[in-house]
Structures are given as structure tokens and as C-alpha cells.
């Protein structure tokens, strides 16, 4: 269903957004062509502010500029101000907003020139990686809603930035880590310089007093490094031992403690080797690895923040026959809501007046609109499609169905046991082997040279410090995540990469994941000239079918229709160029013509629509949710790779089965009619019954791919949760991976990249272990000394860094 530029499309694209300009909407001002009023306004703002340079920026994206056209009045509401706006001492107001559509350097350019476009804005600073703009403005001269409207018109619809508290805690943690790395780095560099003097003194001779001086200096320098930046390894090791477990911190703490204790004693005794330079370097390198690991980890989803993002900001409450706009948080059970066409419901309740159709896609994944009448129960988060209704609220906020669902998401993200990484599983054997070998070394040397026995055993403990081993995973994962991000695959947690290496069960949501997620014209049987007659009528309708016709034939020009009348839930009729045209449900159309034409569409999963002209049925259309391009190929290759692919959807069972066969899957692999709660249960059962890879090994992964709130709880419960583009914020927060390119096409790349990354991690670990084996051999033979250790350990870490960097994980740039 791609639109091809033919007649009706002007030659030059829109001067602002770069899209094709449809002749019907074409606007010309200052000799430039625009596709819509929004683009014209945005361009006017840009030019009036003297920012014409924007259009000449080389990296200006050619994507569609999206505007929502909202008023953002809620940004000025008292409850919003208390939650999100802070006052500075100079009397300015400050707030952070999350922006859609931020991509590149030109976005920074445009957004940061906001003070030129909106008077009273003092400062706008954009963080391009997080898409967050920090604003400061003079509340006497402007309002946040005015700034928000301007951002919206420029193509960056703003949203309240809800994760501020969590993000601030995270940022504080990262800053503290950076400080520790800096201190450890400075100490390591200085201890190494001193060690260099000691080593050259060792070979060319040095006065005893200087040797003593430098050794004491090393001890004085390393002590704070161990006590402050290096303390985390000891607390980590102690916590693990208390819990009766072993992790990588344990061998690290043993090596650091042994090296430091021996260095302190030998400095005091003024004889014997010291490993203080090695200890200093180890602390620094390990902290770098730890920092990378921290940055690659996910943060848990916050249900309350998600609810705020999903429910509308305001709701219209009817009180004493007057309508008042309230923030959604203030909506309480018992209130009567006025819900107009296009509104999102702010709370659960019962319809008291009016009849309409609702779009439940966000909540249940149902692709077709559902009719509601007086007495029907309706839920927060659903969208009213056709006519106004009045709803008596019975549940609101966190007790609404949406609120409870999001709590499940939060719970799922928290409950999910962290996947035990390969490195941590290995640490048990590692600690055991190192301690055994150290004991063996001491025992063997005891008989020949008791004085050297302890030195050699300690040398072994220091030299086997799993520094390179500990860095292998975070480094490779960080590099892979960085490369994947450039391909539009955003990986939020490194464990997803390891889990995706083995084939398991993959559940795909239907609506919005393998399909487009909107009603579309899937089949059309009829003459071409009928199309313009259909469009002429459908222009007068707000029904989703009308929108689907318009989207399917953007190039068709429609004549004017007269005497148009629409029968809700049945069809539409009118006069087009003197001929009577009917478009509607088969039963309704057949009653009005001389019969003929099928009642059902030959493809059962499609919604049928008949077209009659002057009493004869001339065309038949089938509406459904069209498959995304490339979905079938992606599913086929996953099945070939050994994955068990299943469909799990909230849509009607026969629709889901139809899609399954279109994807080349057996009908038994499709489950329809699944509520969000049911989806979560299916995932849990699948995880509980998952087979281990081999006896005693890790369980085969259960992967959930989805886009909506209805999938969020399932995504949070899966081994690996994947959200696709266009999805709701809830599914994004619950997911480990976000595919920004839309559809399931990027799944293959993700799984292939995960396999390669894990292979590189394993290879790096082997190399790190190889270096350790060399160190162990030398220590057992008694020919290792601090100089060997000082060379061996950084070399092994450097090797791992280089191999992680050049490893082929994800392709380096977009294909």
C-alpha cells in the first residue's frame, strides 16, 4: 500500500518538511511551497527569527516533521507546575521537557535558538542523546505552554519528563564513579612512575635511602586508592560471601588484599618484592570496567510515571451542567466526564449518555473499533473515535485497569531475576582454582625455600587478578550496544545479548508489530474510476474506513459529492457527478440495490465493504490490518534459525490465524483474544516450562516482541522483552531492547549481532585466561617478580580492549 507520486502531486516538495505536497493541501507563501499550515507556521517562525540557516544545514534530516497541534495548556496548570517546574533565585522558572523527533546537530541548533523565537525564554539547552531540553524562562513574560507550542510547531512535540528523579539518582551515581576513576587513575599513574624509578634503580643501582623512600611513597599513595575508590570491591565481595555466593568481586578482593598486605609488610621490613604498582593499576582498570558495565544496564520501570505519560493530561468534568477542565490526576470516582471524539479516556467508568465507537488498541491490541452504548464499561487509555459520550467514573489513577496493568509492568521488571552472566558462573571455578594453585605453590616451595614460598604464592594471587576477565564482558557489550544503536537497535541491558544467543521461543504481538497497527485497505476488486467516486463520499465521513480509503489512494483526485448522508455503523451514500453511490456493509448495501455481491469477504479475517453505483454492485473492498513489509521474510528466517515463533495477540482469533498463515506459520502457533493479563500468564508459563540448553545449563530464552501497553506486562516478564517502534511508552520502559526501525525486520540483525557479541566475549575471556595461565606458570616456577606483573597485567587488559573494539558484532554503520 505504498503511495506513488503521480497526478495530483506537485513537483517540488514541502520547503519545511521535505514531503511531497498533495495539490489539495498545497499552500504557497513567499514563493515557497508547503504541504500544510503547520509547516508554513514552522517555516515562518524559523525565518522571522532570522534562522534561515536551518534549511542550509547539511545534516538536516529529510524525515517527516511531526506536529501535534495541541495547546499544552496543562503545562501551565498548578499541579504540573508543582511537579515539574522549579524557581531559580533570579526569579526565573526552570523545567526539563522530553522532545520527540530529536536526531542530530541541526536539532541542537534549532532548539537552542528558542530564545529568539519565544520572547521571555532565557535559556534552552538540549541533551541530544537523551532528547531532553532544559528550559529557563521569565514567568512574567511567557508561559511554558507558549514555549511548548513553539517546540511542537518546529516539529519537536514536547512531553513532561517524568523519569527525572530516577535519572538524577543515576546521574549522581555516574558522577561519583567518574570521580573515583579520576582519583584511582591519578594514583595509578603516579605509583607507576615511582615504580619505573624503582625498576631502573634495580637494574642500574640506587642508593638504599631512595629505594626506601620510593617504596614508602608507593605505600602512602596506594593506601587511599584502596580505601576509597577500591573499597567497592571489598564490600561487593563481602556481600557475596555473606549471601553464600561467589562473584567476580571475590577473586579481585583477594588479589588486591594479598598484594597490598604483602607490599605493606615488605615496605616495613625493607626487603622483598612489592606489588603496590600492580594494585594501583588494577583498581583503576577495574573501575573503568565497572563504569562501562553500569552504563550498559537498564533502569527499572516506574509504574506511576508511565501512567502519567499514557493517560491524557487533562479531562473535562461535568459539574452542575458546566464543563471544567481538570488535570487527570484530580479525576476521582463519582465524577462525570465529557469525552469528545478524539479524546483519550482519563479513567475507567460506565457510559451514561451517548453512543460511540472506541479504539481499544492501546489496552487490548484489538485492531477494530468497538461500539459502546449507555451502560457499557469503558477503560482509561482508550480513545473515543466517533461521537461524544458522558462517562461516570468508577476507578481512576492506579486502581484503573491501565494503572493495575502498569503496576504489573513494574513488578515484572523488578521480579525478573537478573540473568546469571557467564562471567559470574565461572567465578566459582576461578576462585577455587586460584586458591588451590596458590596453596600448591606455597607447599612446593616450602621444602626448598621457605622464605620464598609465601612470596611466590602471593605473586600468583596478584598476577591472576581477573582484571581482563572482568573487563571482557562490559567492554564487548558496550561496543556492541554502541554499534547497534547506530542501526536503530537500542539495547538497554547487556544481558539481553547473552540471552538471545540460544534459540528459544519467540512470541510476536500482531497489532503494530507484524502488522501496521491501523485499519488499511488490503484487497480491492473494482474498476479504477470507482475509486474517485468512493473517495468523494468518504471525504464526508470520520469513520476509520474513510481514513483507510484516503490513505490507500493518496494520488486519486475526488470530485465533489452532494446529498451525502451517513448511517452510523452501516455506510454512506450520496450523489457523485450525477450518479448515486453507496459504500457500506454488505447487508446494508444489498438491501438498497437489486442484490448480488457476496455477504462475506472471501478472506475471512477481512472486514468487507461493498460499493454500488446506480443500483449495481461494482466493487468489493476488504479491510484489515496490513502486514508490515518484510515481516514474513523475518519470521521465515527466524524459524530457519531454530526459533519457535508464535503469535500472541489481543485481536479476534480468526484475524490472528489469518495473519499467522500470511506469515507462513501454522495456525496452532497463533493465539488470539488474549487480554494483557493472559499474555503475561502465557509468558510466565513458557518461562516455567522452558527447556535447559543442556543438562544443568541456562534455560532457553522466552522472548516477547510487542508494541502496546497490552504487551508491556508480558514484555516485562519475558527473558528478553523487545519493543518495536511506534509503541507506547510503557512497552519501551518494560523492554530490554527497542527496535527503532519499526517492524520485526531488525530482529534478525539483533539476534545475529547478539550471537557474534557473545562469541567475542567468550574469545576475550579465553585470552584473559591464557594470560592468567602464563602468570600462574611463572609464579609457580618462582621466576615472576613485580616487573613481570606490572607488564603482564596491563598487556592482558589492553589485548582485551583492542579485541573488543575490533570485534565484528553489529555492522559499524547503517547498511
Amino acid at each position, binding site marked *: 500500500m505504498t503511495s506513488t507520486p503521480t497526478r495530483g502531486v506537485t513537483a517540488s516538495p514541502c520547503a519545511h518538511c521535505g514531503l511531497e505536497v498533495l495539490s489539495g493541501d498545497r499552500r504557497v507563501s513567499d514563493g515557497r511551497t508547503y504541504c500544510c499550515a503547520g509547516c508554513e507556521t514552522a517555516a515562518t517562525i524559523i525565518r522571522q527569527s*532570522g534562522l534561515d540557516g536551518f534549511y542550509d*544545514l547539511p545534516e538536516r534530516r529529510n524525515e517527516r516533521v511531526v506536529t501535534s497541534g495541541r495547546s499544552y495548556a496543562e503545562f501551565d496548570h498548578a499541579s504540573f507546575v508543582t511537579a515539574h517546574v522549579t524557581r531559580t533565585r533570579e526569579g526565573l522558572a526552570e523545567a526539563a521537557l522530553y522532545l520527540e523527533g530529536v536526531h*542530530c*546537530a*541541526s536539532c*541542537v*541548533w534549532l532548539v*537552542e*535558538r528558542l*530564545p*529568539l523565537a519565544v520572547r521571555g525564554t532565557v535559556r534552552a*539547552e*538540549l*541533551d*541530544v*542523546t*537523551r532528547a531532553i531540553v532544559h528550559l529557563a524562562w521569565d514567568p512574567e513574560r511567557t508561559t511554558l505552554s507558549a514555549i511548548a507550542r513553539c517546540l511542537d510547531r518546529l516539529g519537536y512535540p514536547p512531553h513532561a519528563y517524568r523519569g527525572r528523579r530516577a535519572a538524577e539518582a543515576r*546521574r549522581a551515581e*555516574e*558522577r561519583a564513579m*567518574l*570521580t573515583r576513576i*579520576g*582519583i584511582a587513575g*591519578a594514583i595509578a599513574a*603516579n605509583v607507576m612512575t615511582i615504580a619505573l624509578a624503582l625498576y631502573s634503580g634495580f637494574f642500574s643501582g640506587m*642508593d638504599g635511602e*631512595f629505594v626506601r*623512600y620510593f617504596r614508602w*611513597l608507593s605505600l602512602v*599513595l596506594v593506601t587511599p586508592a584502596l580505601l576509597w575508590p577500591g573499597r567497592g570491591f571489598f564490600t561487593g565481595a563481602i556481600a557475596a560471601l555473606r549471601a553464600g555466593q561467589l562473584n567476580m568481586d571475590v577473586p579481585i578482593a583477594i588479589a588486591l588484599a594479598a598484594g597490598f598486605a604483602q607490599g605493606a609488610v615488605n615496605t616495613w621490613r625493607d626487603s622483598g618484592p612489592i606489588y603496590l604498582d600492580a594494585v594501583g593499576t588494577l583498581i583503576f582498570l577495574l573501575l573503568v570496567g565497572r563504569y562501562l558495565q553500569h552504563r550498559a544496564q537498564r533502569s527499572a520501570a516506574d509504574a506511576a510515571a508511565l501512567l502519567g505519560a499514557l493517560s491524557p493530561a487533562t479531562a473535562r468534568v461535568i459539574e452542575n451542567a458546566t464543563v471544567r477542565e481538570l488535570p487527570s490526576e484530580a479525576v476521582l470516582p463519582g465524577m462525570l466526564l465529557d469525552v469528545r471524539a478524539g479524546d483519550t479516556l482519563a479513567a475507567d467508568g460506565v457510559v451514561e449518555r451517548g453512543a460511540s465507537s472506541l479504539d481499544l488498541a492501546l489496552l487490548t491490541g484489538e485492531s477494530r473499533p468497538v461500539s459502546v452504548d449507555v451502560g457499557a464499561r469503558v477503560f482509561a487509555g482508550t480513545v473515543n473515535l466517533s461521537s461524544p459520550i458522558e462517562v461516570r467514573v468508577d476507578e481512576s489513577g492506579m486502581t484503573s485497569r491501565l494503572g493495575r496493568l502498569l503496576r504489573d509492568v513494574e513488578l515484572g521488571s523488578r521480579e525478573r531475576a537478573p540473568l546469571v552472566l557467564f562471567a559470574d558462573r565461572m567465578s566459582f571455578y576461578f576462585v577455587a582454582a586460584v586458591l588451590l594453585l596458590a596453596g600448591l605453590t606455597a607447599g612446593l616451595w616450602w621444602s626448598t625455600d621457605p622464605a620464598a614460598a609465601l612470596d611466590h604464592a602471593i605473586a600468583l594471587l596478584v598476577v591472576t587478578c581477573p582484571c581482563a576477565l572482568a573487563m571482557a564482558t562490559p567492554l564487548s557489550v558496550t561496543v556492541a550496544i554502541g554499534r547497534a544503536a547506530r542501526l536503530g537497535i537500542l539495547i538497554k541491558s547487556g544481558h539481553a545479548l547473552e540471552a538471545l544467543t540460544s534459540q528459544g521461543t519467540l512470541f510476536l504481538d500482531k497489532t503494530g508489530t507484524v502488522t501496521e497497527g491501523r485499519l488499511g485497505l488490503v484487497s480491492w476488486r473494482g474498476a479504477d474510476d470507482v475509486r474517485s467516486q468512493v473517495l468523494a463520499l468518504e471525504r464526508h465521513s470520520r469513520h476509520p474506513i474513510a481514513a483507510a480509503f484516503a490513505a490507500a489512494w493518496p494520488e486519486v483526485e475526488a470530485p465533489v459529492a452532494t446529498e451525502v448522508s451517513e448511517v452510523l455503523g452501516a455506510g454512506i451514500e450520496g450523489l457523485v457527478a450525477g450518479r448515486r453511490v453507496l459504500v457500506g456493509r454488505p447487508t446494508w448495501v444489498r438491501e438498497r440495490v437489486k442484490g448480488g455481491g457476496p455477504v462475506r469477504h472471501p478472506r475471512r479475517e477481512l472486514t468487507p465493504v461493498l460499493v454500488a453505483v446506480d443500483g449495481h454492485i461494482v466493487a468489493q473492498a476488504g479491510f484489515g490490518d496490513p502486514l508490515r513489509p518484510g515481516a514474513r521474510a523475518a519470521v521465515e528466517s527466524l524459524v530457519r534459525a531454530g526459533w519457535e515463533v508464535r503469535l500472541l495477540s489481543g485481536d479476534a482469533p480468526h484475524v490472528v490465524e489469518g495473519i499467522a498463515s500470511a506469515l507462513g506459520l501454522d495456525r496452532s502457533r497463533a493465539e488470539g483474544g488474549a487480554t494483557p493479563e493472559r499474555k503475561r500468564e502465557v509468558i510466565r508459563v513458557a518461562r516455567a516450562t522452558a527447556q535447559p540448553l543442556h543438562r544443568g545449563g541456562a534455560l532457553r530464552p522466552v522472548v516477547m516482541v510487542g508494541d502496546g501497553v497490552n504487551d508491556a506486562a508480558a514484555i516485562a516478564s519475558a527473558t528478553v522483552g523487545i519493543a518495536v517502534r511506534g509503541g507506547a511508552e510503557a512497552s519501551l520502559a518494560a523492554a530490554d531492547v527497542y527496535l527503532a526501525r519499526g517492524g520485526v525486520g531488525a530482529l534478525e540483525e539483533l539476534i545475529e549481532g547478539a550471537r557474534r557479541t557473545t562469541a567475542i566475549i567468550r574469545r576475550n575471556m579465553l585470552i584473559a585466561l591464557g594470560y592468567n595461565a602464563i602468570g600462574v606458570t611463572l609464579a609457580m616456577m618462582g621466576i615472576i617478580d613485580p616487573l613481570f606483573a606490572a607488564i603482564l597485567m596491563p598487556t592482558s587488559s589492553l589485548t582485551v580492549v583492542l579485541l573488543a573494539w575490533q570485534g565484528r558484532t553489529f555492522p559499524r554503520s547503517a547498511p
Partner: protein
Amino acid sequence: MSVLFVLVPVALALVGIFVAAYAWSARSGQFDDLTTPAMRVLHEDPERPEAH
């Protein structure tokens, strides 16, 4: 050579000053966003916005 007994502590004191400066810059958030400032400098206007 005995000058080393004075020079090394002086050098270490300098290191201390640099580390303190680094710790201050890390804590005041100068390393929070390393991408945007690099882009910002590319587009800086020759004249300041207030000059209009």
C-alpha cells in the same frame, strides 16, 4: 639527588590540585553529556543573540 625529597611531594601536591579540579568538574556535571557540546560548537553564530 636529595632534592627529590622535596620535589616529589611538591609534584604530588600538584597532582592533588588537579585531582580536586577534576572531581569538582565531574561532580558539577561537566561530563554528563559529552555529545551535545561537540555539536553545539559547530553551529555557533558569529554574533550573540542579544545583539539583535
